[in-house]
């Protein structure tokens, strides 16, 4: 019943979990416009990268993290010259909607004091991209050391968001894209862009799969229609 149709001219895009809304909409639009067939798969950037490395039938890889793109590039799994920094994002400090906390993000701000006994929810700074950026931002602001022990490290940004939505954690660090859509949290501060390396979502064609239909979807991703959708969900299109 479920044939392995990896050979058909359907384009497969492996895309980071945090892009799920936008990429799903773009794919639907692409299909609606009868420009081709496309199937998106969403999982953690790391999972997808490893799968592509093991020969997964992906044509396009959209990563939330340049590191995993580097990993594939190093293993010669990318079609040379197709890598492109597609999106940008921001990280923000959020709190539950009914929170009365006020806080200004600047050098050495008293995050630890505000947290008290409670936790700061963020993606695991060891591997979740949003967490890595968050840690870098806090470090450059000089407050990381005072809060390391108060960090609840989540499996992904969504889990961190859920902790703040549930008010289990009074503060959290997530992408502005996540904060924009959740109705249960508010943004209490945006981290200065210079406090962390630019947040970049690179995209590339997978080596050997640069079919015309894949290339045309690549172009579509860079086009105006896609841009509108990305921006609707809070991404910066670069």
């Amino acid at each position, binding site marked *: 019943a479920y044939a*392995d149709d990896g050979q058909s001219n359907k384009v497969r895009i492996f895309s980071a979990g945090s892009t799920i809304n936008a990429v799903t909409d773009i794919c639907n639009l692409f299909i609606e416009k009868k420009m081709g067939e496309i199937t998106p798969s969403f999982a953690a950037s790391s999972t997808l990268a*490893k*799968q592509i490395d*093991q020969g997964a039938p992906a044509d396009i890889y959209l990563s939330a993290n340049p590191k995993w793109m580097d990993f594939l590039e190093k293993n010669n799994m990318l079609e040379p010259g197709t890598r492109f920094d597609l999106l940008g994002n921001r990280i923000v400090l959020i709190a539950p909607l009914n929170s009365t906390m006020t806080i200004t993000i600047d050098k050495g701000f008293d995050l630890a004091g505000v947290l008290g006994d409670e936790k700061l929810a963020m993606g695991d700074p060891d591997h979740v991209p949003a967490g890595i950026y968050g840690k870098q931002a806090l470090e450059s602001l000089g407050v990381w050391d005072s809060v390391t022990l108060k960090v609840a490290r989540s499996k992904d940004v969504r889990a961190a968001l859920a902790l703040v939505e549930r008010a289990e954690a009074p503060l959290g660090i997530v992408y502005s894209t996540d904060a924009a859509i959740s109705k249960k949290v508010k943004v209490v501060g945006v981290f200065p862009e210079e406090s962390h390396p630019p947040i970049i979502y690179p995209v590339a064609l997978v080596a050997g799969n640069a079919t015309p239909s894949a290339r045309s979807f690549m172009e579509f991703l860079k086009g105006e229609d896609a841009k509108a959708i990305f921006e609707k969900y809070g991404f910066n299109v670069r």
Partner: protein
Amino acid sequence: MDFSGLTPLELEALRLSLWISCWAVAGSLGPGILVAWILARKNFPGKTIVDGLVHLPLVLPPVVTGYMLLLIMGRRGMVGSWLYELTGFTFAFNWKGAALASAVMAFPLLVRAVRLSIEGVDQGLEQAARTLGAGPVDLFFTVTLPLVFPGILTGVILAFARSLSEFGATITFVSNIPGETRTLPIALYSLTQMPGGEAGAMRLCIISVVVALIAITSSEILAKRMERKIKGER
């Protein structure tokens, strides 16, 4: 269940989940019973290693098991590449791979339940069968296996339920591919990654629970019926 209320996406995930779980259970049942019997009855050097291997998928985080499957059974994997060249068959990124991942994850549960039952079989009955002319294999199918039925049923239910919820190993091994490997838990994951996906996620949860309840209830009814048959009419 009222299928009419389900969206096409939900229906597809449900159908895939059932299809994959059934294959996972069906495929692991035979080997599971065999391994359970060997572990229950035989003593041989290296038994601990076999025992440990069987438990491995239970002990390691699913993501690790999935990654190992990718390394071994993927299209570039040690066994997978060889299998693909020889037969053109591959587990990579299709429903068969999802079934394999489910089967591997559920295997220890199946084996343990069946083994527990086999260890409880009265060997006096097996001796009786031998004096009645049944050889070891004959006896296994006509005496041991029927007596172990409750254990097999428990094993099947555990394995089926475990398959229904299998996520980590599956998504790591065969990714999240709509129509191929996007089972209920993986569709659920996709929804939880989407802000505002809660309602949809809830629906998928309920679907999973209903499916599991149906499976559990029918297994209970089956078990009752068998027991009544064995223990007399009333």
